């Protein structure tokens, strides 16, 4: 018995070893760009020019990070990326909050307060998820101009809320579709109206889907370049557009180390959001997938 099971055992181990080898290979492959960015952002410019891109820094320096943050030349002023980082925060926080809240409200109405034609309304909102960004640029510019929000952070918030509503509604609708109707009925019998049922019963049970939606919206809005480049003026420019201006500026020397540091700075918030709540993201997506 023990004799015969020995080869089977070791071949299973071999298989497992291969599996891990492949997984590690892929992990390295995916992490390599990040490694290059991090390593080169702490080298001096001379070292980058003279040496290997993959090598560890010989003279470790934070100078490029400080430059990228506070004194790099963006456009005409040597302000660094910091004001644009603030711009992005000022845009992302309200846009994510409003679109998530409205998505939850839409999901609630579409599943628990059904009305004639609700499926058509949902279908149209779903359709919004599939409209390419480019198509809405000109009409949106027109709308922003008409209501006087062109070139402002508020304008960008509006654009992102409108564009994100399709996704957030989809997320919440599917989550709430699996939420038992009897609970809503019980709340009705208990005397809770539309809003109190929403805030006291539904929202407190929506943790996973809120996390999913917030991550999704935060990442998309923070990383958006097209809307930022199209609708923001110089004072409301988000981080992504400023980074592009930094990297593609045609004056002077190409400071690769500063560019790398700036790119990492721009990517940092989404990275942090993923690390902090990534496991909820996976859990939430799974829950939605199985139940919805």
């Amino acid at each position, binding site marked *: 018995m023990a004799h015969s099971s020995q080869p089977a055992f070791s071949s299973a181990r071999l298989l497992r070893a291969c599996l891990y080898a492949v997984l590690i290979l892929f992990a390295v492959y995916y992490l390599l760009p990040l490694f290059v960015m991090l390593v080169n952002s702490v080298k001096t410019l001379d070292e980058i020019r003279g040496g290997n891109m993959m090598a560890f820094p010989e003279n470790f320096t934070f100078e490029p990070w400080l430059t990228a943050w506070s004194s790099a030349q963006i456009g005409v002023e040597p302000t660094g990326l910091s004001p644009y980082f603030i711009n992005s925060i000022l845009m992302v926080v309200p846009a994510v909050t409003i679109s998530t809240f409205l998505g939850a409200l839409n999901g609630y109405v579409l599943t628990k307060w059904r009305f004639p034609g609700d499926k058509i309304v949902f279908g149209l909102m779903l359709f919004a998820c599939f409209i390419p960004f480019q198509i809405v640029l000109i009409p949106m510019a027109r709308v922003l101009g008409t209501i006087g929000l062109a070139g402002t952070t508020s304008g960008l918030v509006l654009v992102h809320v409108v564009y994100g509503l399709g996704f957030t509604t989809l997320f919440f609708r599917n989550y709430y579709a699996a939420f038992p109707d*009897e609970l809503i*009925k019980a709340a*009705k019998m*208990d005397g809770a109206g539309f809003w*109190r049922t929403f805030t006291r019963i539904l929202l407190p049970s929506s943790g996973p889907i809120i996390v999913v939606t917030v991550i999704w919206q935060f990442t998309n809005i923070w990383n958006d370049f097209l809307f930022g480049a199209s609708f923001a003026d110089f004072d409301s420019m988000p981080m992504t557009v400023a980074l592009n201006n930094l990297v593609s500026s045609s004056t002077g020397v190409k400071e690769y180390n500063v560019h790398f540091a700036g790119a990492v700075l721009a990517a940092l918030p989404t990275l942090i959001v993923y690390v902090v709540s990534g496991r909820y993201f996976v859990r939430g997506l799974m829950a939605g997938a199985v139940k919805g």
Partner: protein
Amino acid sequence: MSFLQIDKVCKSFGPINVLRDISLDVEEGGFLVLVGPSGCGKSTLLNTIAGLEKLTTGEIRIEGNVIDDLEPADRNIAMVFQSYALYPNMNVGQNIAFGLEMRGMPKDERDAKVAEVAKTLQIEHLLDRKPGQLSGGQRQRVAMGRALVRNPKLFLFDEPLSNLDAKLRVDMRTEIKRMHQTFGSTIVYVTHDQIEAMTLGTRIAVLKDGIVQQYGTPAEIYNDPSNMFVADFMGSPAMNLIPATVRGHAIEMSRAGDDPLVLSFDALPVTVSARNGQDVIVGIRPEAITDAAGRGGEKSIQATCRIDVVEPAGADIYAITTLGGKEVVTRLHQDWSGSANQAADLLFNLEKIVFFDPQSGERLR
């Protein structure tokens, strides 16, 4: 005047009529059970009483006041749901207090009420737990507590026992009956389980396809079914429905491998005797066919039948014979000594026999 009056209620979803002209009255402190197979409209009727569904035509009155236009919360009705519908984000105490909180009752009053109800239902030790940490029976108690705490005029139960295992179901059934006796509350209870209906109800309404088939006390429903559907649906094992032919004052049923069995009556109901030579359906409960050792009642006829299958059930023995081409269940005493594939003497209690029209299924009286 009745406490709860359901007056000619109809409900349709588009072209589908779910409830058709339903009229039921319940006295104060009564226990009305709505029973029927799935899709018969019983839950819809309950929801219209609760106000969760609007009725199409008709009226529902409580103590003479029409409640059709009131919101569910304003009807002073509490409901216990099939899944219990406990709010998963709140603990037991908050669950019970939620209805009071929504009505703006101050916190100390709320706490006192919750404590009182928790004591009655013996769930004081559970007040800080979340519904997810409770067993099925405990959830059921909490759901009842949430209904009781508001002291409503009317309780609605929507199949509250169907999620429990068999043993617990019997216990909780007793619990509900006890609650009804203790508080004297008026209850409307929906179930598809005819045993629950028989044990709990003071009045039973048997529904099928949105129509009330029969409305009466459990004894009336059981002994005096108004059509074949009610006869077949209520009682376990079900009533035997045997094809037979009328011969003057007697009815005749074919018997496998033997002469037909003839049961002679002193007097058949007029509608039956008028069908001399025609077919009728004879309805007879298993306990009305018993072994010769038991007293079958004063007007009994003894006959010999061949037993096909014997099913001992502890207190009784169910023996199956064939009459009129149908399997017929008989209920014999546990000391009966016969066995399968042998002939046995059976007593037919003529007082307990009812007749149905084979085409319409309606009772012939």
